[in-house]
């Protein structure tokens, strides 16, 4: 019997042929934890009797979820992480260096065909480059730090074929929102998703990361974006599913028909065509996160806001996904364009998306956000409403003070 991509990767790491639903003990190529999860991981590692991590070159710690520290309690957790990293001789990315997932990909800590675990649910993002990566909790991660292994159940796979071509002004974010809306928040629970098809081949790495990032919003364990057409700064082997591999479900979507999409409160699968939310007044707009804080995203926003000024009743907050993204955007004038339009740049990190700090909405406020989740209270205030959309929609909405279809805005300008 043929194998899916995930069956192939797990087989390689389990040193035996496996198929879906089998339990396998696997060797892990790398792990990472953030300031939300690492302190508990360190404690669990020590409680397990751990002294040295299994391989200091394969463990990464990132301070991004509450960075810089908003209070002394969190500051002390950051200190705990720094001290552990020093003693263990492992790489720690400190405040402002970037969001964990961006850093793992940008710095080549994860590569195609690898098996990588992160103590963060959006670890599935690395499927953008054909790695099997999944999110686990702190204690599971401590187990890997101790043993270099973990156990897992090989998931069944869904194949999602994307035909056609995205319309101008419609982004990878609109595409993944559309798919999350179609499959639902538990539509792929425990499954591995393979995205393939002509619409995938032309996507940039940034766009592929947006696509795989939100697979967890359907409950998926992992996600793979077909690496055909993917360009990386190093050589790699493509892994494809066999022709006779067994897929539990197959979906085919024509992406040419997708419009700008929006997830309305309070769930990421509450997805609508933007027409249904048009003109909803907004008070806060956010571009950033592991979903949409990359250079492509800032460019799109700058294109819309160049020479203009955001609506006086709106605060536009931007958190680049990494220091590298910020530097690139500084050098090419994007930061200047956006700042001149009224945007407020904050340190690279997760703060507003996870409701830690640096942009918590007030009671009754509506937020349009280029992030991944809009659960009640997600951005730090249960009395606010979060709408999820593409960076173009966020920028266009910030400009008008109300939810705006960016494709209509462009027509009006030209």
């Amino acid at each position, binding site marked *: 019997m043929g194998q899916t991509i995930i069956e192939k990767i797990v087989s390689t790491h389990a040193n035996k042929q496996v198929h879906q639903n089998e339990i396998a003990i696997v060797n892990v190529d790398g792990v990472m934890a953030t300031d939300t999860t690492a302190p508990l991981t360190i404690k669990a590692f020590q409680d397990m009797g751990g002294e040295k991590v299994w391989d200091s070159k394969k463990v990464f710690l990132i301070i991004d979820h509450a960075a810089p520290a908003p209070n002394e309690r969190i500051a002390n957790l950051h200190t705990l992480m720094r001290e552990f990293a020093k003693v263990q001789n492992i790489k720690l990315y400190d405040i402002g260096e970037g969001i964990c997932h961006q850093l793992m990909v940008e710095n080549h800590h994860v590569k195609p065909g690898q098996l990588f675990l992160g103590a963060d649910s959006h670890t599935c993002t690395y499927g953008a480059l054909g790695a099997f990566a999944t999110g686990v909790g702190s204690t599971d991660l401590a187990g890997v730090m101790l043993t270099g292994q973990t*156990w897992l159940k090989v998931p069944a796979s869904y194949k999602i074929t994307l035909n056609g071509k995205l319309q101008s002004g419609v982004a990878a974010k609109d595409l993944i929102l559309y798919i999350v809306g179609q499959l639902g928040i538990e539509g792929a629970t425990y499954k591995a998703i393979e995205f393939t098809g002509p619409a995938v081949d032309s996507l940039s790495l940034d766009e592929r990361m947006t696509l795989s990032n939100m697979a967890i919003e359907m409950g998926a364990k992992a996600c793979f974006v077909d690496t055909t057409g993917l360009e990386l700064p190093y050589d790699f082997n493509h892994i494809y599913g066999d022709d006779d591999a067994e897929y539990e479900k197959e979906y085919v979507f024509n992406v040419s028909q997708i419009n700008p999409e929006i997830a309305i409160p309070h769930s990421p699968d509450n997805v609508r065509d933007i027409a249904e939310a048009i003109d909803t007044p907004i008070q806060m707009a956010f571009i950033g996160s592991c979903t949409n804080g990359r250079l492509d995203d800032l460019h799109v926003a700058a294109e819309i806001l160049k020479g203009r000024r955001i609506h006086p009743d709106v605060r536009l907050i931007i958190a680049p996904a990494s220091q590298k993204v910020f530097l690139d955007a500084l050098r090419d004038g994007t930061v200047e364009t956006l700042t001149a339009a009224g945007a407020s740049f904050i340190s690279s990190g997760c703060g507003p998306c996870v409701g830690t700090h640096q942009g918590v909405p007030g009671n009754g406020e509506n937020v349009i956000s280029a992030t991944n989740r809009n659960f009640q209270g997600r951005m730090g205030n249960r009395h606010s409403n979060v709408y999820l959309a593409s960076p173009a929609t966020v920028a266009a909405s910030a400009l008008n003070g109300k939810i705006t279809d960016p494709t209509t805005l462009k027509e009006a300008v030209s």
Partner: protein
Amino acid sequence: MIITGKTHVYGDNIDTDRIIPGKYTKTLNLQDLADHVLEDLDPEFRSRVKQGDIIVGGSNFGCGSSREQAPLALKKAGISAVVAQSFARIFFRNAINIGLPVIEVKDHSITMNDEVEVDLQNGQVTNLSTNEVYEGTQIPEVMVKILNEGGLVPYLKEYKSYS
């Protein structure tokens, strides 16, 4: 292991942001977590919960963030087990890893304040208030072992490896 307790019943898709909001997760003090557990979903929960109570959910319980603080907050607040029609993957693993029993029963008609008995050995849940018995889904052998040791920390302390 047999666990008996009174229920707190919630619906489908209870996400980890609602179990413990992100702004409270950055701590090693479990009481800090318990003090804010479920506060956006059910502000009265903390004053109502008693040691040994059982949480009952619909489908996809614990979806969203990988934060292990979610099951930790429930456990510290006194919850002895979680019964749901289905669980999000990471929450389920986390709960077992920290020694919070979880059991999936596809169909149940458990209501608020029912007295429920969870029999982990036999994978059964009994609603003592109505005498209905629900069959649970079997969990992998490795999870049974981890749960029997009280969680992944004592398991790995004892065995040092998974193999």
